[in-house]
């Protein structure tokens, strides 16, 4: 019963891992309490998004990840 959480881009350096497993179900308060303080601080920034099950959440505080879901923490992008 777990949720895989991916730390994309610079968030992986802040967490010290590119992915971690957390107990399911996982909601927003649960996520904030289990990631490192540095990543939790980033998650509170408006430009950091969260995807669950391959979809970007319009409102990340509504996160409700179930067993088997993949949650991706998406910092500001820099393409091109």
């Amino acid at each position, binding site marked *: 019963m777990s949720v895989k959480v*991916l730390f*994309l*881009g*610079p968030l992986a*350096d802040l967490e010290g891992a590119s992915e971690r497993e957390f107990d399911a179900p996982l909601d927003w308060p649960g996520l904030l309490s289990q990631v490192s303080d540095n990543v939790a601080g980033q998650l509170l920034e408006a430009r950091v998004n969260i*995807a669950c099950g*391959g979809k*970007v959440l319009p409102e990340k505080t509504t996160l409700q990840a179930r067993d088997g879901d*993949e949650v*991706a923490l*998406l*910092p*500001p*992008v*820099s*393409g*091109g």
Partner: protein
Amino acid sequence: MARIAVNAPVDVRVLENGFSVGEALAAFNAAHPDSGGITSFVGTVRPDGEVKALELTHYEPLTLPGMEEIAAQAMERWSLDGMLAWHRVGMLTPGQSIVLVAAAARHRRAAFEATDFVMDHLKSAAWFWKREQRGTGADGAWHWISPRDADYSDRARWEKE
């Protein structure tokens, strides 16, 4: 004949390996023989300072769908015959191409604007992250590249109309 084929009207790719800009554009031209105007933009790793390598990572479940949505918006907004948007991931060295965007249209203005629009969105609204390796020694140090304010304001230009 072009050695590679591109899909018409829209060809969007995330590429793990290097590509030939010349061959891609030849194929794009061949796919749109009736277009009066074709514009393209190529972004390359700047060979400046101490940069030794650039690494592009992405979030695969979102990357291609996101790029396809950007191309679809351009197709809807301008009168275009076709769009091409290719973006590299992985390890690149100075001088290598990161991104190629091309638009085919009956008239040039639509092609120029659509290319500009797609580039602005690839810079700050597609799911890529890049970091560069600088400094001396075998490994050097890796630095994440943050989006610039100009990247956001460039994209915001398209929201005014």
